[in-house]
């Protein structure tokens, strides 16, 4: 390995260590690493623009605009109160309904916003029920990561994989959707077995809880009724567009003959179109909405792309890929290695930097083998691997951080015990299904 390659590897390892430790803001750490490789010329300007995946960045921007605009209407609080009321004071129903709602919302909107807005309500419901909230919170984390794994837009690793590999929304839904539905059922069963006994309340108490929860008015949560309906309409429209984004030309051609029937929209374009429609229609002040875009997250992604780009430029990724290809005998073996490596490394590292590093590796392997199944293996491992530890995915950190602030300590080891169990069971189920699909 030459000196330049050694420097690229050193910067990569140093930056990832900083990201794990987080003493420096992750965005700053990524920018620092990117600055070093750019400064010493490992990644020149032209290559830098190639390595930054603008498909991911713009998709994130579009969805952030939609979510932040919708948030102002009280939509999420409305969903949270409706869910709490639907549960009818039964702890098991609270656990199941919040898990399902979290999974569904996470599948279409970002996990961090979903758990950030649902967790205070879950804590409140647990307080009303006079129960320990930790089982509910832990289940919410797992549900968020499983739900997010089901779609192209649900979880950052999937956004990155979809953009890099040119995979469609429907492909994600077809290959990962059923796996995640099965995993949700398994998760709920596991949570019931682990925590079910601690969730008993007597009928008298349950009656009181229902009274308190019925006293909540979900309509009072809607701060702007017009914005609420417009947000729901645009979100549904965007989801619908995602379903047909790769066939949009053929659909439009039937009413607008000048549109090329072969035309498709990139997921990022769909998100930005939705964001534009919502901003125009809702008449929300754009300065306020655009200010809420999570710029640190975007710079974090940008920095990671450049740092990993340095490994590509210096041939490190190609080297690792050729070693892997030489040692991997079959597609099944490759699926096995990618799935389990991604799952375990995600749990330790955080699934976003892991995915950023794995994408060019799989792309390099694509020159000599069919890597299509490997994208699903990576998505599966990276998303579900996030369940393994308290720092495996952003949703985990957010929920555990909120719990800590509200006086409920979820220790690293306590989470690890349940998280690793969920990781191994759900990844094994997903791996089994991928194996049946692509190997048998």
């Amino acid at each position: 390995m030459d000196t330049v390659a050694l420097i690229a590897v050193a910067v990569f390892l140093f930056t990832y260590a900083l990201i794990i430790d987080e003493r420096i803001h992750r965005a700053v750490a990524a920018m620092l690493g990117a600055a070093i490789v750019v400064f010493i010329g490992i990644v020149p300007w032209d290559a830098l623009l190639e390595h930054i995946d603008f498909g991911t960045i713009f998709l994130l921007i579009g969805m952030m605009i939609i979510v932040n605009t919708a948030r102002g209407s009280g939509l999420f609080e409305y969903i949270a109160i409706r869910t709490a009321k639907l549960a009818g004071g039964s702890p098991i129903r609270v656990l199941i309904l919040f898990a399902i709602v979290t999974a569904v919302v996470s599948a279409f909107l970002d996990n961090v916003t979903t758990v950030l807005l649902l967790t205070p309500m879950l804590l409140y419901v647990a307080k009303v029920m006079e129960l320990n909230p930790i089982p509910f919170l832990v289940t919410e984390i797992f549900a968020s990561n499983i739900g997010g794994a089901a779609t192209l837009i649900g979880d950052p690793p999937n956004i990155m994989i979809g953009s890099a590999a040119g995979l469609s929304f429907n492909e994600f839904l077809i290959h990962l959707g059923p796996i995640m539905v099965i995993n949700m059922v398994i998760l709920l069963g596991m949570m019931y077995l682990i925590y079910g006994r601690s969730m008993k309340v007597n009928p008298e108490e349950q009656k009181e809880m229902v009274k308190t929860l019925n006293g909540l008015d979900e309509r009072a949560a809607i701060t702007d009724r017009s914005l609420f309906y417009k947000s729901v309409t645009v979100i549904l429209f965007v989801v619908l567009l995602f379903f047909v984004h790769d066939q949009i030309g053929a659909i439009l051609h039937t009413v607008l003959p000048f549109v090329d029937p072969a035309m498709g929209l990139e997921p990022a374009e769909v998100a930005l179109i939705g964001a534009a429609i919502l901003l125009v229609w809702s008449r929300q002040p754009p300065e306020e909405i655009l200010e809420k875009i999570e710029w640190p997250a975007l710079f974090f992604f940008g920095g990671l792309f450049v740092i990993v780009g340095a490994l590509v430029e210096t041939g490190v990724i190609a080297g690792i890929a050729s070693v892997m290809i030489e040692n991997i005998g079959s597609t099944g073996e490759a699926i096995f290695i990618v799935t389990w490596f991604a799952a375990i490394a995600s749990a330790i590292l955080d699934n976003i930097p892991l995915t950023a590093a794995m994408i060019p590796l799989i792309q390099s392997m694509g020159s000599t083998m069919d890597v299509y199944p490997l994208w699903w293996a990576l998505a599966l491992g990276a998303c579900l691997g996030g369940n393994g530890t308290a720092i495996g995915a952003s949703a985990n950190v957010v929920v555990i951080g909120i719990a800590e602030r509200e006086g409920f300590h979820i220790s690293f080891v306590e989470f690890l015990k349940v998280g690793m169990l969920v990781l191994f069971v759900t990844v094994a189920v997903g791996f089994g299904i991928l194996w049946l699909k692509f190997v048998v």
Partner: protein
Amino acid sequence: MGYSSSLIQRKFKDIVGKRYDSVLKDYSEFLLTDEEMVVPEIRSILVPLDSFVHDIGDEAIDVFSAYDATISLAYITDAGVIDLLKQTLGHESAEEFRAKKEEYGQRLLERTAAKLEERGFSTQTRMFVGHKGDDVARMAKNHDMVALCRSYADGESTGDSVSPIVLRLCQRVQTPALIY
């Protein structure tokens, strides 16, 4: 604080920033505090009705359902209007007006009571000629809560505005008041 706790706090701060504070602020506007969470003893709720109140909305009924209370429906025909009609159009016209109002009131009371009973409430009804402001304030003393429709005693109100009599009643009565 151990390394893992401080690590999670650092990551939380970097991922969430100040967003959690604004979420908490939004929730605090409609979630109950610990003190508010103790459901007050409400055994009877007074619901005044008149010709400007056509129905009790579902959101008000949802709030009633938080209490195990009897609901007293009181239809009041304005004595002032009847006196005015007596002086200007004569006794007969005033009586005709009163009969029409009472016929409407009876139907409204029956319809509303049936709706509430369908939702599991026990109800009481009464109808009389009186002064809407004074009589409701007097009756409210014998109930644990009074629920006032925003258009009660005010034919002029449009949209979401609250009638002046409802606003005055809220200032006068000691009993907790709910405006729906």
